[in-house]
């Protein structure tokens, strides 16, 4: 029996103990972060960025049941929004907090732009079209030299500062990302539990029956694409600010696939699952760094193993944040 099976199993004592253990490790990790060397903080930061991306993409894949393989496009839109508005490239030097809403709006607009042509598509067809969309955005960035610097990218981005506080060291970004992930996580979780979240689930289960009970599936799907893209775009803006350099290389199909993998392995449709999936896919390569050339093989084997043992993901959909809270603090 695996960890999560034990978590969801009838025995509340062991389940509670494991929940507490996982929870304690998470708190300890957060508490220890300020004292870790910069290298580890950077690793944790990239973990947090991927969790944020996972939370965004999960809206479309996990809640609404639409396989989107072009998510990285929204990440790129956010990153380049920051890069263009806060660098010598266009000689614009907007403050971070002014760029964030711009990036969010551009992300949402791009999300709807992708959403409209794929409204009628599902499954494999949708996956192919979204994959193409992701590539189009990357290729545009790669070739729009006068604006984006082409393959060279944009360097010397401004240091971010929020309300006069400079956000430059890895640990500053750790706090910024932690807050963003928590806020996005709570909002998206509440969104999932709202009436719109239920409609997304209905579309995932049976789109035609969903129309039959009066759900305007066009609007509900576009809302899913827009919200998802907004979060991806915000993640991109923070990413750009922390790297202070962007180039098309960061936004390849591989990134999209990695985020999808995190969701599938962690537990599709569950925010806790995304955290688990991101932790495994981001931290394991670090742990296995010494076995450099074996890393990918290990990771591949682990994925195959997890998919066989836990087809619903490490933390299945049924064990959502509400269950975790109830298990930790409830009766």
């Amino acid at each position: 029996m695996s960890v999560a099976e034990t978590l969801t199993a009838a025995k509340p004592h062991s389940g509670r103990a494991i929940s507490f253990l996982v929870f304690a490790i998470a708190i300890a990790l957060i508490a220890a972060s300020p004292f870790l060397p910069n290298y580890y903080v950077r690793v944790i930061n990239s973990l947090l960025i991927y969790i944020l991306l996972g939370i965004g993409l999960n809206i479309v894949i996990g809640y609404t049941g639409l396989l989107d393989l072009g998510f990285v496009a929204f990440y790129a839109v956010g990153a380049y929004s920051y890069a263009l508005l806060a660098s010598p490239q266009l000689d614009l030097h907007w403050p971070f907090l002014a760029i964030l809403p711009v990036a969010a709006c551009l992300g949402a607009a791009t999300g709807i732009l992708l959403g409209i042509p794929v409204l009628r598509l599902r499954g494999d067809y949708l996956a192919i079209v979204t994959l193409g969309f992701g590539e189009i955005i990357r290729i545009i960035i790669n070739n729009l030299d006068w604006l984006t610097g082409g393959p060279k990218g944009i360097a010397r981005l401004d240091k971010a500062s929020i309300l006069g506080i400079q956000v430059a060291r890895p640990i500053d970004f750790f706090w910024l990302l932690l807050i963003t992930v928590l806020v996005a996580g709570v909002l998206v979780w509440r969104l999932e539990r709202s009436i719109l979240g239920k409609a997304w689930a209905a579309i995932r289960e049976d789109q035609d029956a969903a129309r039959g009970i009066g759900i305007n599936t066009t609007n509900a799907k576009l809302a899913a694409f827009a919200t998802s893209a907004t979060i991806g775009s915000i993640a991109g803006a923070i990413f750009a600010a922390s790297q202070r350099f962007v180039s098309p290389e960061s936004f390849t199909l591989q990134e999209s696939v990695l985020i999808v993998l995190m969701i599938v392995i962690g537990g599709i449709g569950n925010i806790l699952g995304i955290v688990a999936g991101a932790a495994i896919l981001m931290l394991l390569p670090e742990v296995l760094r010494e076995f450099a050339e074996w890393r990918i093989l290990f990771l591949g084997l682990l994925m195959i193993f997890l998919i066989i043992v836990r087809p619903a993901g490490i933390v299945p959909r049924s064990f959502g944040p509400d269950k975790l809270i109830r298990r930790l603090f409830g009766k």
Partner: protein
Amino acid sequence: MTLVFDKLRKQYGQVVAIDDVTTSFAPGLIHGLIGPNGAGKSTLINMTAGSYSVSSGSIALDGKRLDTLKKYQIANSRVARTYQNIRLFDQMTVLENLEVCFYPADVGGTWKEVVWPPYASARREKRREKCMDILRFFDLQGYAETDAGSLPYGRQRMLEIARALVCEPRVLLLDEPAAGLNHHETAELTARLAAQRVPDRITIVVEHDMDLVMKLCDNIIVMHHGKLLFQGTPAEVQASPDVQLAYLGTANDIDEIRAAAQDRRAQLGIRARRRS
């Protein structure tokens, strides 16, 4: 205040599935739609609910055209349906299957639900109350937190009807609600549907179980080859020679069927003898 079909027609290429059907359905009654397989009963239901397009003619509810609307808009005109093959949201709980029906009414408050928890719980409580009422009516309250897909078949049928009823529809379309149910379950279903005969609701039932139709329906419409063959009370339908003809065929047909059956038996008999 009725549902009206006017010269309603459905054509697939050269095949005419519904052939200029004109009729109206009075509110407060349960209308039975019967006829042999392929008569066009389900097609009528699917056209009314917007699942199929209309080739020509029109469908109107209280004078408002339905056939020009999209499927979700028809549902928002308070037309609810069930399906011949059960179509629930399998991986959602029984309660969620009903809650989601309040989407058209509540979607405007989504953001308020997200950012303002007291509002969200008030809305949720309100939805839950209505859903639990209808679940109790169908004796499903014990399954509220169960995934709909893991319910026994008979309960799934009940849940689908509950889902159609939860928003108090003006028009209720039931496509073979008793299919696959045992005698006991069919009797329960009949009683529950009879209790849902409210004054301004138009209920249309497509059903092969004649016992249910005769007991439940106030008005019966008999379809045959896409045409309206007969319309009347259960007693009138039972007495009509036309209806018997459509269902059983002519006397000649019966003789032919008997002859064919005898033929087949004879052949089988020969084979059996050879084997021994």
